[in-house]
């Protein structure tokens, strides 16, 4: 796995978040209590003098791991986060992506309407999934949350387009160019608190976290951040191999994202 210059990545992410905060009226961030979104919040604290200056949204399908809930409450208190918990329901839908797909999007749509957010910070990374590689740092979504990936602003020479004529909202992706190993290097360097499920117990750990029904632990002996970094340097297993929705076809993921899935 390629490691990049953490300082350079940090500076760019901080710039993107400051740009978003100054250019949009109402900004919010999605927080799943996973390593990426928690790292994003740590970056936000660095960008805004120790305080996350926007509401943090957890789309809660009420079957997350108990450790995840405990981590949410602990960190929300410690970092004085303005936490909004949006309950999502599981309803039948065609693709089998029941709780992660349309249902979470429905809860988020409702919340966005209620609060009037015009920009949403999401901590996706390009290396996680093929379709996420098509994203931009600032990417428009229409009123229905739909993403037209064939018609996005060009972001050449680091010119991030925050002036967009959108009827919906803009997704901000400050971690787009980070790799999984960069995230762990940053966690190590900055002592970012982390969900305990990432660390091995009985020879298994979670490498990517979803809810209790779609995520399984993978074989790993990595008990701390250093072990994880060592493991990632040599692994040939995909990061999201424990996530059931990623086992479906690339096209399905592309379709889901274009419909608004995070």
């Amino acid at each position: 796995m390629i490691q990049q210059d953490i300082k350079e990545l940090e500076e760019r992410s901080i710039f993107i978040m400051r740009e978003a905060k100054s250019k949009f009226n109402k900004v919010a961030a999605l927080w799943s209590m996973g390593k990426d979104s928690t790292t994003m919040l740590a970056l936000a604290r660095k960008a805004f003098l120790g305080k996350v200056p926007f509401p943090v949204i957890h789309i809660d399908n009420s079957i997350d791991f108990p450790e995840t809930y405990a981590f949410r409450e602990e960190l929300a208190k410690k970092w004085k986060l303005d936490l909004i918990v949006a309950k999502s329901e599981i309803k039948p839908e065609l693709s089998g992506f029941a709780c992660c797909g349309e249902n979470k999007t429905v809860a988020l749509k409702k919340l966005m309407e209620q609060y009037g957010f015009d920009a949403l910070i999401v901590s996706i990374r390009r290396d996680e999934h093929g379709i996420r590689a098509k994203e931009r740092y600032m990417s428009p979504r229409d009123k229905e949350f739909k993403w037209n990936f064939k018609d996005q602003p060009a972001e050449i020479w680091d010119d991030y387009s925050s002036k967009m004529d959108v009827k919906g909202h803009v997704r901000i992706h400050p971690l787009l160019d980070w790799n999984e190993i960069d995230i762990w290097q940053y966690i190590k360097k900055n002592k970012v608190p982390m969900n305990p499920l990432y660390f091995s117990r009985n020879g298994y750990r979670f490498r990517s976290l979803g809810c209790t029904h779609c995520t399984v632990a993978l074989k790993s002996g990595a008990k701390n951040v250093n072990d994880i970094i060592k493991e990632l340097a040599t692994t040939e297993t995909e990061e999201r191999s424990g996530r059931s929705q990623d086992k479906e076809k690339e096209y399905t993921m592309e379709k889901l994202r274009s419909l608004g899935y995070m």
Partner: protein
Amino acid sequence: MGNELSRIADLLWKDQSEKNWDALAANMKKGGAKYYRVFFEQGKLEKQDDLRKSYAELYDSKEKPIAKVPIFKTEGKKVEGATIYLKGLLNVNRVD
């Protein structure tokens, strides 16, 4: 105290009300529970009601099973996930 945990677990299978879940949360650790594992073995989770097919096993510090509980809460006919009530227990991290 282990008996009390079993009693509440039995009660939860009959009635998944908030009151019973609160009772479980208050007695889980006193009853010796340290770890848990969620099981979902039947079909796909496509609607909230499918949570009825799920359950969690609670284990003591030696990972010996001590109770089996549902992982949903009911409010009238409404079904909702309830893993938040297992807060404080640790996932067993097995995929066998």
